């Protein structure tokens, strides 16, 4: 397709930008994404491998790194199912029933997207920290929340709160209630209706939301930094450990862990793209983040 005077007439388009403008815009975009996105991505792996593969792998195997990996997996293993359960319940409640204040409820669910992760962490510290009545009682009872796993999980659930619900709500609105109503008239129980009718219809959207939720849960830094207390080997997740190593000028170790998370990010993007290509019709058409 070309608009230059030399191009054969039949290949001209009546409403396209001139060829030069198109290539200029493509050039700007490629250059911009190259500098802004690809360069940092490459830098992570390049910095991790400055002393070779052996050094990079060795730094992943030491005790603190292993503890961090284990903690991050634990955080994700608890907070992602919690959010999936919440997302399904909220989407069911919002799309299958009519009630006053629905729009307000949706706004509240979206709220964590507009709150700084640091402020989210602060909120949790104020509520459950040793200084508060509730936190003091919990510490005295032997169940500390802040500077311990429960606080980290709570902070993670907070920042990832809307992910699954936001994916499910538009899909379930689009699918309507007719199929569930049909199942109910045929005598299916509520649980059976959900498992055999609703769940198959929303599984790809659910997977999509879980994928994004998981990436954020494993990578959350700001909120966890505030509530974790950054106790090495105990409450330091991978991102927190990266910060500590980086501040100690242990560059290879920091970037090796970073590369691990970057791989997770790349796998997430890959799976997300595959889902978008294969199951576009069963994933919300509008964009969420």
């Amino acid at each position, binding site marked *: 397709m070309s608009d230059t005077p030399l191009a054969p007439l039949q290949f001209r388009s009546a409403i396209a930008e001139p060829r030069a403008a198109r290539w200029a815009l493509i050039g700007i975009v490629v250059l911009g994404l190259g500098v802004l996105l690809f360069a940092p991505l490459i830098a992570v792996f390049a910095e991790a491998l400055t002393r070779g593969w052996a050094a990079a792998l060795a730094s992943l195997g030491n005790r603190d790194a292993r503890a961090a990996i284990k903690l991050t997996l634990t955080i994700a293993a608890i907070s992602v199912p919690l959010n999936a359960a919440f997302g399904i*319940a909220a989407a069911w409640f919002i799309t*299958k029933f009519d009630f006053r204040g629905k729009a307000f409820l949706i706004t509240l669910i979206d709220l964590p997207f507009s709150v700084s992760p640091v402020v989210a962490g602060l909120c949790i510290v104020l509520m459950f920290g040793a200084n508060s009545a509730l936190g003091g009682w919990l510490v005295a009872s032997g169940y500390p929340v802040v500077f311990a796993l429960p606080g980290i999980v709570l902070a993670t659930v907070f920042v990832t709160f809307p992910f699954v619900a936001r994916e499910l709500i538009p899909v379930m609105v689009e699918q309507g209630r007719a199929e569930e109503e049909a199942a109910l008239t045929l005598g299916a129980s509520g649980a059976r209706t959900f498992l055999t009718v609703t769940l198959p219809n929303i599984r790809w959207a659910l997977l999509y939301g879980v994928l994004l939720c998981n990436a954020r849960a494993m990578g959350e830094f700001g909120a966890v930094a505030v509530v974790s207390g950054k106790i090495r080997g105990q409450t330091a997740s991978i991102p927190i450990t990266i910060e500590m190593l980086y501040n100690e000028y242990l560059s290879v170790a920091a970037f090796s862990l970073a590369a691990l998370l970057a791989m997770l990010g790349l796998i997430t993007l890959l799976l*997300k793209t595959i889902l978008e290509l294969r199951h576009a019709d069963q994933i919300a058409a509008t964009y969420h983040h």
Partner: protein
Amino acid sequence: MGRPLIHRSPMPGLGLSMGITITMLSLVVLLPIGALLWKGASFGLGNIWETVNRPRVWAALYLSFRLSLLAALFNLVFGVVLAWVLARYRFAGRRILDATVDLPFALPTAVAGIALAALYAPNGAFGSLAKELGFTIAYTQWGIFIALIFVGLPFVTRTVQPVVEEIEREVEEVSATLGASRLYTIMRVIMPMLTPAALTGFALALARAVGEYGSVIFIAGNIPLRTEIAPLLIVIQLEEFNYDAASAIGIAMLLISFAMLLAINLIQVWSRRRIGYV
């Protein structure tokens, strides 16, 4: 008789789904935010003002807001161009570019932070280049600006791209038959159609940038009054167990977030009323 709070429905699971929703929303989101507001209320408005009204805090809030605004503006322009190119042009590598746009959502902020710091440090790949040209990027406001562009990059693109894909070809064709040049069509027909989505993306990018912490602190240098962002100030106060001051700054930021959330909603209401769609 008023409208019922909840309409009767044959659907099962009302109690269960409502229970889980309300309980988790309260426990995870509302009560903690309430704790912050309660702390603020007991601290007192006067004390909050006294805490915020110090040069260091003002400098941090001003810096966060100003650079976030500039980064969001950059992303507004670049994001619209990017959305246009991805939706309209076919070229080798388009799919890879399209998938990469979401990298800032998938890459943890701490990872992005140290990667940007390594790139733009005076001995880094881009930093050394800038040094030869007489610039310093890392540990200056430029570094913060770049980090905020990174985290906000996908928002405008992802809100605008579906709108570009939905523009009917006929609308552009009719403009051409009426004698309008391509540039005139783009400025007068296409841009107004993209404006509501672009503004929504802009507001989302701005909200994200104002609260951003992880990707900024490594490249910022964190010098009080010059390169210290507001979220970092909260972290510093917390590390000194100065909960009152941290809460005061937190409330200030929360108010900014609420204002932006309100702005997003108003934009959508406005565009729906004006054009009949979002």
